[in-house]
């Protein structure tokens, strides 16, 4: 055990954790909107809209995240037309490519989580709203969405942890996130176990925090108060 290396690499890894956290928050933020949007499409009665949303979530849940990042980072740059548009400013940056890929990926999973949450809402609650003369829009925003969010908290907590682990793939497109820096230190010092303990420890700590925050929120917003 090389404790000196562990001690020295800790600040470097901590610095890289900031990149990981940035990637995570950005993709979760955009992903939540994507997920909500596609969950609403999934509940639409129009079969084409419905199938479109299902296709989106099926494709992004059925393929590895690595393929998605590679298509967006290496693949899209190949289209000549895209290079001439303003989108190229975003797409040439590995940072934004990673965020786009993570957003689309977590959006697909989130849409499934929210859809099942919407579907488990008892019809009686909506009927009660209707019989009180509340408009459909307000029923949706004030009754259905809050209940759906509460219902999907445990599953969404898992999704956050999965996404946190997913951000490690950003290191494959040259970004120096926690895993990227860990790999760099491993390949220069050839001390994989020490670096793994430190980097893994940081990841576990983040998992621990996320897990407990979700648990707290679940308790706070539980129905029996």
């Amino acid at each position, binding site marked *: 055990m090389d404790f000196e290396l562990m001690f020295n690499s800790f600040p470097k890894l901590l610095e890289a954790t900031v990149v990981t956290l940035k990637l995570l928050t950005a993709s979760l933020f955009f992903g939540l909107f994507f997920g909500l949007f596609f969950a609403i499409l999934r509940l639409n009665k129009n079969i084409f809209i419905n199938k479109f949303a299902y296709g989106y979530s099926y494709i992004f849940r059925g393929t590895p995240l690595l393929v998605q990042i590679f298509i967006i980072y290496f693949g899209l740059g*190949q289209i000549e037309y895209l290079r001439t548009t303003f989108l190229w400013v975003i797409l040439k940056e590995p940072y934004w490519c990673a965020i786009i890929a993570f957003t689309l990926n977590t959006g697909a999973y989130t849409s499934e989580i929210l859809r099942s949450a919407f579907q488990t809402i008892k019809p009686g609650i909506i009927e009660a709203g209707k019989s009180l003369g509340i408009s459909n829009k307000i029923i949706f925003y004030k009754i259905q969405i809050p209940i759906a969010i509460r219902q999907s908290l445990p599953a969404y907590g898992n999704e956050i*942890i999965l996404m946190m682990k997913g951000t490690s793939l950003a290191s494959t497109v040259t970004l120096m996130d926690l895993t990227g820096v860990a790999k760099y230190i*491993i390949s220069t010092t050839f001390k*994989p176990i020490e670096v*793994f303990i430190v980097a893994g420890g940081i*990841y*576990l700590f983040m998992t621990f925090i996320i897990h407990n925050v979700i648990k707290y929120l679940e308790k706070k917003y539980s129905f029996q108060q």
Partner: protein
Amino acid sequence: MELLAFGKTGWGDELFYATLMTIAVSITAMLIGFFFALIFTPLKLSKYKTLNLISNCYTTVIRGVPELLVIYLFFFGGSGAIMYVASIIGYYEYIEINAFITGSMAIGIISGAYSTEVFRGAIQSIDKGQFEAAKVLGISKFGQFYKIILPQMLRLAIPNLSNVWQITLKDTSLISVTGLVEIMRQSYIAAGSTRDPLFFYSFAAILYLLLTYVSMKLINKLEVKYSRGY
């Protein structure tokens, strides 16, 4: 389309073998995972706190740390660890483990952590009365497990195991960083030499979709088989 031709002109046959490699790694990893689950599930359900702790450490660490980091640990640390063990026996030559074994070990340990949780959940949801009835009838511990607990447990475990299989299948794409030629690595090579990454990575995505689709269909059949009588 000529990019996908078989033979020397296209990448069809290379990608076909790469797909077989992905399937082989996934199945090997899944079996290694079952092996780990077989060790750690009893530990998790054991009465002794230390054994519980060991098993909990395993599942928590593996499920809380990115797969890529575990793969790097095995890739860079695997042959070192083996050589260390060999040096104790008195063998000092350089040992290189091939990418297939390193990769399936890494993915296997990850899928083992998920399988352990699945098996634990399945066993715990079997009615206590079943265990007691078996004991009263004087059935041996071995018989209890194989003839009474296992068949009931499988029915409950299959839907969740199919999730584990999907995760494992998708995780194998990460072994491409170690140089094992599976779908992802082959697409990377093809994309590099033809300068057509969009086509090859999209094709890789289609191959993965196909694999997940077909395996879902097969697993659904299994599910029907094990739910007979319910």
